Structure formats: structure tokens, C-alpha cells
């Protein structure tokens, strides 16, 4: 190895020479690089001190940066929890004290202190209750009733229309949300020779079929056993959730799905009469707060209107 001549001003080389004339520069790292490197070291030390960093055994260093938030204990009392920095705790804190969370709390407080009538008359509170209700609906109701409350014929009632099986008052709806519903129609023992007339008579109540003469009187007679719940004129009974058979809405028998085919409509009704109905909605009272249930009721009630 020969030391190449190094004139003043020339860059220093490592001293290695290959192939007679190839030399390697011995440049120091750029200063900005070196400083950036030092800065990263300082940064990491500060980071270790502030945040969780080093694992040891079955634990890890917690860092001195903490996140505080309140939780409700088993005894129902609020207490403040101080935890090492982590994103889950940050999220909890944000849900309690971020500006939007505080604004939401303020609005929820308003809804809590207002009657349904007062809420209806205040456009801003109504708008808030409707949109909160919308989200609650998405979480708890949409799985059965559909995202828009349109239901599923034969299974889940349509909430977007203006017919209410159990009554349309807010109080009733809140009650049903909290306590759930047992919907039941017993299977009927209608003799084979009159069930066709009964079905046609039911259809005629809503103008879906025309029936006259003997058939009509047979049907009307057979309907007597239905009138206990649905009323003598088939207008339903909100006290027991018996639907109005004289309006245009069909919740269980898919009459509109049959189009103009009367035989199909008759079959639909016969099926319901022969087999009865068993439907149930679970109680949500222990899953929703009172205010949530109220806002949900407003949303559901207003979706279809009067």
C-alpha cells in the first residue's frame, strides 16, 4: 500500500490503491447527516421517557406521559382513571372530553330536559334528536327492520309507513322499545269450505276483492272469530297490536306482491289464517339509555309521519 500524494486542497483518500490508480475517498459524513443522527438519538431518549417503550419480563416501561379519563364504576360512581399513554385511553378520553363530545353532551342534556312536544317545536333539537336516533337505529334496529326501517313483509314490520300496530304516541313507542313486543295470532281452525270465502271477505275489507251474495255472508260469518281482535269492521286494535285489515298496508300476508292475481292473494291470507303468527322483538331497555330510547322513538315516529 502506497500513500498517494495528497496535494493541498485535494480530498483525503483511505490510502488504498487498486489497479494502480483507483483510490477511495475518505470523506466524512455530511455534517447535516451527523446532526440529524444525534437529533434522532435525543428524540428516542425523550420518547422512552414519555411513552411506553421497553419490554421486560411480562411488563414494559410505562413512560411518564399519562392519559386521564373518567369511568363509571360498578357502584355507579364516576372515578378518574390515570393510565399510561396509549391510543385506547386517548380514544376514551376523546369520547368524553373532545369538543365534539362536549357539544354532543350539551345537546343530549337539552333533549333530556324537554318534553316530546317541546322537541318537536324546536327545529335544531329535533334535527339533533333525529340524527342521533338515526345512528341508534343503525346500531340496534336496522338488522331486522332494515337501514331505512322498511322492514320485511311477513317478518319485520315496516316502520317507514304511517300505520302503528300498537299506537303512534311517543310514549307507546318508547315503551315498546324498552320492553319488547310479543306479537301473536293463534292459528285458526276454519273449515275448508268457508276459508276461501273468509279470505275473500278480508280482501274485500281493503277493496282488494269483490265478494257478494252467499259467499259474502259466509265470509262475514266466519270473520266473527277474527273480530275479537281485529274488530267487527276489521279496523284492528292497538291495545293488542291487531292490525287494521281495511287499510292498504299488508305486514304479513304479501297481498301487494300478488299483483292482480286474486287466487294468489287468497292463498296468502289462508296461509296466515291457518298457521297464525309468532313474532317477537327483544327488549332494548337495558341496552339504551332513557334519552337514547326517546331520540330513537322520535326518529322512528317521524320517519313515516302521521
Amino acid at each position, binding site marked *: 500500500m502506497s500513500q498517494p500524494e*495528497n496535494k*493541498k*486542497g*485535494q*480530498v*483525503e483518500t483511505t490510502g488504498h490503491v487498486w489497479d494502480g490508480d483507483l483510490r477511495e475517498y*475518505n470523506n*466524512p459524513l455530511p455534517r447535516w447527516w451527523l446532526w440529524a443522527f444525534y437529533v434522532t438519538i435525543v428524540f428516542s431518549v425523550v420518547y422512552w421517557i414519555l411513552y411506553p417503550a421497553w419490554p421486560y419480563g411480562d411488563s414494559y416501561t410505562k413512560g411518564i406521559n399519562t392519559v386521564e379519563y373518567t369511568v363509571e364504576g360498578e357502584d355507579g360512581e364516576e372515578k378518574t382513571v390515570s393510565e399510561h399513554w396509549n391510543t385506547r385511553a386517548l380514544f376514551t378520553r376523546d369520547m368524553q372530553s373532545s369538543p365534539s363530545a362536549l357539544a354532543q353532551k350539551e345537546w343530549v342534556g337539552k333533549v333530556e330536559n324537554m318534553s316530546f312536544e317541546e322537541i*318537536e*317545536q324546536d*327545529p*335544531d333539537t*329535533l*334535527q339533533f334528536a*333525529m340524527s342521533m336516533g338515526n345512528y341508534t337505529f343503525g346500531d340496534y334496529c336496522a338488522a331486522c327492520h*332494515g*337501514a*331505512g*326501517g*322498511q322492514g320485511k313483509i311477513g317478518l319485520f314490520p*315496516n316502520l*317507514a*309507513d*304511517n*300505520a302503528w300496530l300498537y299506537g303512534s304516541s311517543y310514549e307507546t313507542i318508547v315503551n315498546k322499545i324498552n320492553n319488547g313486543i310479543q306479537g301473536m295470532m293463534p292459528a285458526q281452525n276454519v273449515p275448508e269450505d268457508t276459508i276461501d270465502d273468509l279470505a275473500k271477505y278480508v280482501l274485500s275489507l281493503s277493496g282488494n276483492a269483490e265478494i257478494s251474495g252467499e259467499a259474502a255472508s259466509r265470509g262475514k260469518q266466519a270473520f266473527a272469530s277474527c273480530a275479537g281482535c281485529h274488530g267487527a269492521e276489521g279496523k284492528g286494535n292497538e291495545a293488542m297490536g291487531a292490525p*287494521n285489515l281495511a*287499510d*292498504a*298496508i299488508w305486514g304479513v300476508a304479501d297481498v*301487494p306482491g300478488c299483483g292482480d292475481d286474486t287466487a294468489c292473494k287468497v292463498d296468502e291470507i289462508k296461509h296466515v289464517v291457518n298457521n297464525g303468527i309468532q313474532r317477537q322483538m327483544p327488549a332494548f331497555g337495558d341496552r339504551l339509555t332513557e334519552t337514547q330510547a326517546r331520540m330513537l322513538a322520535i326518529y322512528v315516529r*317521524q*320517519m*313515516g*309521519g*302521521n
Partner: protein
Amino acid sequence: MAHHDDPSYPADPLYQAREPIHPKAIHGRFRRFKDLVLLLAYGVFFLLPWVRWERSVGPDQAVMFDIPSRRYYLFDLVIHPQDMFLLAGFLILAAWLLFFVTGLVGRAFCGYFCFQTLWTDVFMKVEALVQGDRNKRMRLEKQPWNGEKIAKKGITVAIWTLIAFWTGFTFTSYWADAPQLFVNFFTLEAVGAAYITTGILTATTLLAAGFAREQVCIYMCPYARFQSVMFDKETLLVSYDAGRGEGEAGRQPLHKGLMTLEERHAQGVGDCIDCNLCVQVCPTGIDIRDGLQLECISCGLCIDACDQIMTKRGWPTGLIRYASEQELETGEKPNLLKFRTIGYGLATIAATVLLLYGIFARAPADISVEQVRQPLFTMLASGDIQNNYNVKINNKLQEPLAFDLTVVGLPDARVSVVGDFESLELPADGSRKYLVHVRAPSDAQVDRREIQFILTEENGLVEPLEHDASFVFR
């Protein structure tokens, strides 16, 4: 550390260390003009956030850029997010104005209006106040670090920091209620963003106007690179009249036998007496006599310097002056009504007119009607069909509005608003969303109809708002 003495360092360093420039103070018309602009700009910038302006809704601050409420308040003009295109219009206008001015008088923007110039100018004034003029500053620079140097440099930087801080704080106060921010800021109760913004502005102001100075103009500024493409032979530029200054035998300092113009002209010597004052006053440290340079920011201080010398000698001024390249070559005065100027001028006027039109033609209120799509339609107990619509209305005025809603295009339609509101009321400068039920008898003829929502303001404060929608039967 002096790299030149270090043999291991490349002979040709990539970056040359900055040599501090210490311009000499000068008096004259361009200096006066610069001071005037400076006073005006500082006055506007520093006082504007403190001007109060009563509003029925929103802050009582004349100019405020309110990010949380998404409003820009400019006196009686309130810019909503929907009107943000006005900002684009303003930027376009600013660009054309820059082109127009540059085409006419070169980098005048750089020399008189640019923030970098204005703040550097003030920082230099502070420097001169504390450390004295050019000669004293240069002596101080060379002097080893002793008590005097530390004190003088320290006081200078301290004052700079104060100005920089107030600059940063003033900038921040455009985005919040200024007096409130002032109190919160110093009681450490302002939001983090206020401290960060003020901090960044303070640091960058100090760095750019205190230490980087002309390097910003030369190396960092994009305008420096492209303003020259807007020049032509008739653009007025700060120019050295080489023909007059150099004569046939070049410039010569004053000495015996070359004291008067007659003596000099007789020997073919030019009018320039090589006093170097034009170089000494230049804030970017260039010699204008070398011709048009990228570094020249057209501030005209060399003109003041040269005129001062010429006046002292009793010679005609204007050896350095605003002159076009063509004028220096042929003596022809520039034609101000050239194609380029007219073009840029028309574009500037067009941008101004469009911007003004945009401001005055802003919709005072707007609506959006969005059909509820799940379910699209519902059969009601009566057999009628119901469609629901979310009607969102924005009121951009500073007073409340009340609208009557009608739906046209649907026979026998019945319209009801959730909450049974008779009129759709809107608070001043606010927006609301209403759920609207539209009901119509089932129609065997069509699947859907095109309908139109019409909102009529009850007091006729705004033109009726219309929005198309459709009604679905099945």
C-alpha cells in the same frame, strides 16, 4: 471553522459560506417611497386585527379567518366554504397584477412590496440603530467577540426577536378574536395551534429577515427565477447607463485632471467616478454596473446613491436610473402601450371584474334536496305513496330567513315537514336540515315524476330557491 485551511475539505465547496452584507443607509426618492410603502404595509398588517366591526352573528372583528366556524370575515363580506372559489379568483388577480407590474417596471414587487424586503428593511434599520451604519457594522463584524460585540449583537437580536414575535402573534390573531387571544396567549390558556403558529412565524421571520436576508431572494424565492421571463426590451429596469458612465476609456475615480465633466469627456473617461456607493447601499450586495442580474430586486437604492453623488458634483443625475434595455441601446423611450402591457392589463381588469362579480353575485342562500333512498317510496295506510326528502338550507345572510315550501310537478301532492313546521325558519348565518314528507295518490301511468322544490322567502329577502328532485311511485 474556516474550511479553506482544512486540507481534507474539498477545494471547491458545494456551498459558499454567506458573507454578511452591510448596506449603507441612503436618502432619496426611492428610499422615501420604500419607507412609505413600509409604513403602509406595517400599519395595515399590525393594526387590522384590532379593528372592531359589529356583526349580528359572528365575531366583532373586522378581519378574521375563523376556521372552526368555517367563515372568513372581511368587514361586511362573509366568505362561506361554498364561496371559496373567490380565493382562487383573488390569487389569479394577484398573479396577473404581478405579471402586469413586472412587465412594466420589472421586479418592483420585490423591491417595495415583498414581505421579505419589508421585514429585512426593518431589521436592517434596527441593526443600524444599535450597531451604527455600514462602517461601524463592518468593524464590529471583524472585531473579536468581546463585551461590546456581544452586547450590540445581543441587543440587535433581542429587538429582532421582539419584532418577529409580534409579527407571528399578529398573524395568529387574524385567525382568532385578537383581544381575547392576547389575554389567553399570555395567561397560557390559548390553544396549542396559536403557540405553534406564533412560534413558527417568529422563528421563520427571525431567520429570513434577520439572518438569511438576500439569500432568500437569490436562492429560495421562485419569483426571482421566473420574473425575468416577463421582461422585454421595453421593461423599465434599474439600469446603469454604461454608455455615459464608462465613456470610451472606462470609469475613473476623481483625481487631478479628471475633476470636471469637461476634463473627463475630453479624455474619453465616463461619468462614473467609481465611488462604489451604489454597491455599498445595495441590500443584495451586487454591483449594478455589471448589468442586469438575477440578484437585483429593483429597489432603486443605487439610484438614490448615484443621484446623490451626481448632485453633489453638480452633474446631471440619472447615471443609474429606471430605463429599458432599448432606451440604453438606442435612446428610445419605452412605449408603455405595448402588446404585452395591454395584454396583462386586460387580464388584470378581467380578473378584477370577475372577482367583483363573484363577490356581488354570491348566492345569499342555497338549498340541497336529497331524496331519502332507503326506502325510496312507502305505501301509506290510505294507499297513497310517500317519498321523503332531506332539505338542507344554508343562510349566508346576517339576518334570519323564513321560507315557504311548495312542490310543483306532482298532482294532488301533499307536503309536510317533520315537526309540522309551517315555514322553514333559518337563523342568521346558519343552516338547517328538514325532513320533508311528500305524499301523492298512487299513479298507474308512471314509475316516477320529475318534481321541483321551490322555497319562497316570506319577506322577499332573497330570490326564490329552486331544486329539482324526483318522486318515485314504485
